[in-house]
């Protein structure tokens, strides 16, 4: 089901309908009280004209102050209710967007840049808030004051009122014409803002490369291009909005001119009385503000609509990887994971894996080797259903992954990706991911991941703040944090993508020993370029150029695969002696 832009808003407006209704009522009350004060002043002046006494004046003064206090109180209520609702909308939409993005598959983020998504979460949601909050207020104001003014005018003279309303169809036509253009240009401006955000983000996050490669001027030039496009978009937009506001005022002034000319002649000719004419002119003044408000509302709403559409486009992207309706729970640890004729390609690229048939069993460890771009990481990702095969199926105990409840599947899997993502926070939080862990067990994991000494040397130990993306850690340290995270979760399927690539050989060996101790009862997959990390595995799988070229016990593969043989020989001969 696709959501229209306003479907996003509706649930919030429904939830807060009491507040909205109360706010609108208060706003209407304020509008009428405001029309009342001039009446009090008029009565006071009339009294004075009639030669009234000083005694009544105090009463009038008190009445004005009383009205003002009443206006103040009602104003407070509508601001809280209406603007408060818009803040609720903002809060809810942002949370909803975040939850939705978290459910989208990684492939989505391959296609959509982080900075652009950030722009949605701030800029676009902000526009929606403005459109709902101030939009509601200005719309109510325009309708109430406009109706009141027209009512007063009708009361005085029907014919003149009709004259005043003569330019109205022009307003409707103009608004329709302009708002379409406005909408289109707002869309362009918002897209340009998103691109600007992403360009800035990209170059700031790659600052080390920018500096090392003296790309500062080039980076600034790219940001300048994005910023120039944004400026141009805004200037093109203001050619529309800049004409629109004054146009609304122009129309109400045209009404006035009509009244002045036709009404004036009628008055001069004695068809209507002078007093009615003067009163009429003064009421036309009342219609100017609603007209301006209307212009402003149109602007806010068009901007909000363009933003809502951009948000709806995200919400309408259903997670490509989600529970199928017939998804089944997965009871107990998987005994067997099978790849049946699996082909997989990333967007716009040739196949990363082609027709892979592979069977992985519990209680065994698999070593995956192969040249870069061979498909090793893809194989591991498919097992966790982070991506889906284009052809063929991956099955767990005979059930295709697509028919297993996603949460159940992932609860069985621990995964240490090649480049472990480190969250800003403390070292301890990065390992435990915020869960409570018995100190003894944590110490054991730290030891297995060869982190114990490093943690002991840090003055703040596990409480050390590691900075964004673990900027304060070395590559090897990050890798071990990712490893500790996977080991700690203690799950039956352990997927390790290149776990020791950035460790020195001594540390690497310690880690491998720890992995060996944990192999029993698990299905373990180790991707590595180092033979030491895989040579002890029960099975070796060789992936070259997306194809499975050999599999079997290390001895079998040694005899079957040229690649594996060459790789072993290379490391063995180069490494001086201790060849296996």
């Amino acid at each position, binding site marked *: 089901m696709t959501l229209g832009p306003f479907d996003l808003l509706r649930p919030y407006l429904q939830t807060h309908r009491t507040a909205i209704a109360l706010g609108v009522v208060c706003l209407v009350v304020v509008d009428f009280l405001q029309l009342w*004060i001039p009446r009090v002043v008029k009565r006071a002046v009339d009294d004075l004209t009639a030669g009234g006494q000083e005694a009544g004046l105090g009463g009038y003064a008190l009445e004005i102050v009383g009205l003002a206090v009443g206006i103040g109180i009602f104003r407070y209520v509508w601001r809280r209710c209406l603007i408060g609702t818009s803040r609720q909308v903002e809060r809810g939409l942002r949370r909803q967007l975040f939850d939705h993005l978290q459910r989208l598959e990684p492939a989505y983020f391959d296609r959509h840049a982080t900075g652009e998504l950030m722009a949605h979460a701030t800029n676009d949601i902000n526009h929606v808030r403005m459109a709902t909050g101030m939009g509601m207020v200005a719309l109510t104001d325009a309708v109430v004051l406009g109706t009141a003014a027209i009512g007063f005018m009708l009361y005085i003279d029907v014919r003149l009122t009709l004259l005043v309303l003569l330019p109205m169809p022009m307003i409707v036509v103009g608004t329709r014409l302009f708002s379409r253009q406005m909408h289109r240009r707002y869309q362009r401006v918002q897209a340009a803002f998103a691109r600007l955000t992403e360009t800035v983000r990209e170059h700031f996050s790659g600052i080390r490369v920018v500096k090392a490669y003296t790309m500062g001027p080039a980076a600034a030039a790219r940001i300048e291009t994005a910023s120039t496009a944004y400026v141009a978009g*805004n200037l093109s937009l203001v050619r529309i909005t800049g004409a629109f506001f004054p146009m609304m005022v122009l129309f109400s002034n045209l009404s006035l001119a009509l009244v002045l000319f036709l009404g004036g002649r009628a008055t001069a000719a004695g068809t209507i009385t002078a007093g009615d004419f003067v009163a009429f002119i003064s009421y036309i003044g009342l219609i100017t503000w609603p007209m301006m408000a209307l212009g402003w509302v149109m602007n806010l709403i068009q901007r909000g609509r363009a933003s809502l559409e951009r948000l709806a486009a995200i919400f309408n992207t259903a997670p490509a990887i989600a529970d199928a309706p017939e998804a089944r729970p997965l009871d107990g640890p998987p005994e067997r994971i099978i790849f049946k004729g699996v082909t997989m390609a990333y967007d716009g690229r040739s196949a990363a894996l082609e027709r892979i048939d592979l069977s992985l069993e519990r209680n065994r460890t698999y070593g995956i080797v192969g040249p870069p771009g061979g498909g090793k990481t893809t194989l591991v990702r498919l097992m966790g259903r982070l991506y889906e095969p284009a052809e063929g199926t991956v099955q767990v105990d005979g059930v295709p992954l697509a028919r297993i409840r996603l949460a159940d599947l992932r609860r069985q899997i621990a995964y240490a990706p090649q480049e472990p993502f480190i969250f800003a926070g403390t070292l301890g939080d990065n390992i435990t991911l915020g869960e409570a862990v018995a100190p003894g067990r944590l110490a054991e994991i730290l030891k297995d991941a060869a982190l114990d000494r490093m943690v002991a040397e840090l003055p703040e130990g596990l409480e050390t703040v590691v900075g964004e993306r673990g900027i304060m850690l070395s590559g090897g340290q990050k890798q071990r944090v990712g490893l500790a995270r996977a080991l700690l979760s203690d799950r039956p399927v352990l997927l390790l993508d290149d776990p020791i690539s950035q460790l*020195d050989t001594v540390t690497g060996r310690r880690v491998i020993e720890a992995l060996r101790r944990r192999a029993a009862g698990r299905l373990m997959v180790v991707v590595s370029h180092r033979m030491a990390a895989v040579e002890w595995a029960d099975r070796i799988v060789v992936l070259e150029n997306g194809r499975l070229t050999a599999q079997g016990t290390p001895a079998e593969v040694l005899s079957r695969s040229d690649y594996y043989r060459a790789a072993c020989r290379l490391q063995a001969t*180069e490494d001086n002696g201790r060849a296996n």
Partner: protein
Amino acid sequence: MRTDYGYAEEKRLGRPYDLKLLARLVPFVRPYGGMLGLAVVLVLTITALDLALPYVTKVAVDRFIVPRAAPGEALPAMAQRMAGIGWMTGLFLVLVAANFTATFIQVQLMEAIGQKAMHALRLDLVRHILQLPVAFFDRQPVARLVTRATNDTQNLHELFTSVVAFVFKDLFLMVGIAAVLIWLDLRLALISFAVLPLVMAAAWHFARRSRDVFRGLTVRLAELNTRFAETIGGISVIQLMGREPANAQAFGALNDAYWRLGMTQIHLFAVFLPVIEVLGSAALAVVVYYGGGAVVSERISLGALVAYISYMRMFFRPIRDIAEKYNIMQNAMASAERIAAIRDEAALDAPVDRRPTTPDAPAASTPLVALEGVVFGYGTDAPVLNGLSLTVARDQTLAIVGPTGAGKTSLIHLILRFYAPREGIIRFEGKDLRTLAPLDLRRRIALVSQDSFLFSTSLGDNIFPEGLPDPGTVAQVLEAAQCTDLVARLPEGLATQIGEGGRTLSSGERQLVAIARALARNPTLIIFDEATAHVDSATEARIQAALAYLTRQRTAIVIAHRLSTARAADRIAVLRQGRIEACGSHEALIAQNAYYHRLNQQQV
């Protein structure tokens, strides 16, 4: 100070904003001074036209529509009156058209000034940020800086278009009306101005409280952005580890904090604006009471009182307008403050000291790179490097081995002058690094780091950021970095867009691209920081063969975990606990150094 989320929280700024902050914006607007002047003139024109329109109506009514004959004069003839009405309507229409045109031009002008000034400010900020030392980026989450360069500059633009012109107009109106009020009746004016101190007091109190709220909002928004960016970056880990609920909860807490501040802001405005309104009405009440009394005692005329009352009502409108605009102003000031804080980061990346305190090393026999007694640590942390000395001879390859976390990457960062050492000297070609412009230094070095950051442009732009060289060189670079197969596999070859951070490539492929980028630079010094960790031995062997050819006339530093990589070097240095423990050939180190010996034993 830390938030619950680990970042160093942005410093609270105690000092209230001052005009100096606004003065700093002046240089960005100055080029558009003429346009700004014209815009202000137009604003005043529009105000005058706004005031003239009712006057035209009044004249039309008094002279032609409902004329009152002065004593001794006859009423104008009906035909004359009809014609007069026509003329006055014509004049009215001309003024209306002028009003429309002036408003349109004024809006275009203000938008153009605002946009261009903010564009200049944004670029100035971005250029400044790009020049800040790497240590600055260690402390700042990227999303926060992005927020400053995008959302905050945007806020300043709003200041321009919505505030500057209108504040002029409102001030102009206020002063004018105040003058008229005083001219009409001094005593009444003084009495009705009695509420002004209360207005001031309310505004002052409000300004102080709302400032904190607006400051809070800018800080929280950056936090939200940061969390967003981080979640997207770590989405695979989050999903596979089933961390979505906990992560959503953490985000929800930040989102709620932002919302609560937003509600506080609403409360402040909902109290403040009505208070101003009540005070305005109180002034009106005072005028009705005292002014009415004055009419009764015949001190002033009724007409004067009526005029006085209508002006009084006009007087409070601009005050309310300004208060309303205060919202935008506060927002912009809070943003200006944050931008200024970054702009004030004076510690530019690697400032150049042209007057060296250390003499240049003698030219003959100078090593390309020399480190003498270098002590270095991040921030105020314990030192990572502790009295390290090392030389890298020209045209030689030096390998550095050592346990993870020993300071190998820090050493590289010091040579690139990403950081400055706490003690000791680093020389490049015998010159103290502090005396070299960082751009000149870095232009001669190519780094292939542990994580190969690529840009979301085409593959070709990533490898050859300064434009494609001749096809022969391209082929040579691609071949040496083992990228030929990769390029052949991609649908559009070098022109293929590789996505954010090159995420459509595998880590091994990214590493190969980074190596190609380094080779394409044709550097004096090439640094490999575990550059082949994600590459298999066969590919690595081929890269090394190509490198050996390419580095004949070049100096190289190679950080390696695999001894197979290190052994090919001319010399090997063992870095442990922040010092060089030993340095020499493979064979010499096996004999001399216990760590290296053990490393060699365990190597497979």
